[in-house]
């Protein structure tokens, strides 16, 4: 089967771009006082607290920046499921490329968090075995900063924001390919 499947068929839905904003809001609310203080110091606040009026502008600025970088990251993240390998490309300024033969995939995860359930999205992840190992808490920290995991990082590839049906279909496709492409040497896997 020479079918090549790209992100055109299984796209990251546009609504997912809003997710990093949702992640940022509680973060900002929690740290708003510290934030205010820092801004005050930056803008040389006078005792009458005039610098506070800049706060909404700065907040909106940060939110726009987050949305903008999410859009850029989505535009530059490409995934291609070819016959024997998966080709992934990512990177806004510095470009990275990775090719994974189907045989190295260890497991496939489909997850939904609260935002995903609201908008009927799913996040598909698959892992290989590589020397750089990040633990679940490392991934959670990254997720907290950027709103959601997307792209390849250490031993894991995450494709968030897929529609539920797309995620299931893509998972079936990958499982089929894994079956068709067993690992030749017995050193890896079993």
């Amino acid at each position, binding site marked *: 089967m020479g079918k090549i499947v790209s992100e055109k068929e299984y796209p990251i839905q546009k609504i997912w771009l809003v997710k990093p904003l949702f992640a940022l809001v509680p973060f900002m609310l929690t740290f708003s006082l510290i934030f205010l203080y820092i801004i005050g110091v930056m803008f040389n606040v006078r005792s009458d607290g005039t610098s506070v009026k800049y706060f909404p502008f700065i907040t909106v600025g940060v939110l726009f920046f987050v949305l903008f970088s999410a859009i850029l990251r989505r535009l530059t993240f490409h995934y291609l499921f070819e016959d024997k390998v998966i080709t992934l490309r990512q990177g806004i300024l510095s470009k990275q490329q990775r090719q994974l033969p189907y045989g190295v995939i260890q*497991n*496939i*995860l489909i997850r939904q*968090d*609260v935002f995903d359930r609201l908008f009927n999205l799913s996040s598909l992840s698959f*892992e290989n075995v590589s020397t750089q190992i990040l633990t*679940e808490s490392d991934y959670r920290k990254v997720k907290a900063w950027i709103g959601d995991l997307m792209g390849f990082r250490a031993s894991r590839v995450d494709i968030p924001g897929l529609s539920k049906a797309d995620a299931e279909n893509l998972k079936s496709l990958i499982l089929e390919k894994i079956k068709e492409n067993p690992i030749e040497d*017995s050193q890896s*896997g079993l």
Partner: protein
Amino acid sequence: MSRTREQFPLSPRKITKKTLASTVWGTVALLILYPVLLFYLNTLSSVGINLSDYFSKGMLIIVGIIILHIILMYLYQTWYFNTYFYDLTNDYIVIKKGVITPREITIPYERIQDVYVDQDIFDRIFRLYDVHLSSATVSSGTEAHIDGVEKQAAEGLRAALLNTVTERISKHRENKLSR
């Protein structure tokens, strides 16, 4: 309900176990902290507060909170129990759990590196077991487990998995040798 779950079912005692495990520490903490706090405040203040009055009213509220917590946790665990899904298909095992944030992990049999069974302290009280599988990744160890099965189901699952995995290895070796 999948065939695998019918064959190797989760025990309903799991609901009780999970409710207990999630609420016991909070309950104990509240029941101890409140009187201690009152006592401490009493010794601090110069005017003696009406200790017994605060105590009885406060404890009533605390007990109310504890009971509410237990009830809500029980309902949540029942919901969780009902939506817990695991299936051994021809090529892979799939485990899906979670109510608020559902998570599903699929591991092809060829990637299963180890299978083990354990019990935590609450499991021992209810005679339940936890079946863990992992592939070569760190996160599969934490995600892929079926917990809350009774001994028979645990032994059955472990045997079935090891059986399938060894079958796959020998089939793979056969394929390689025949080339």
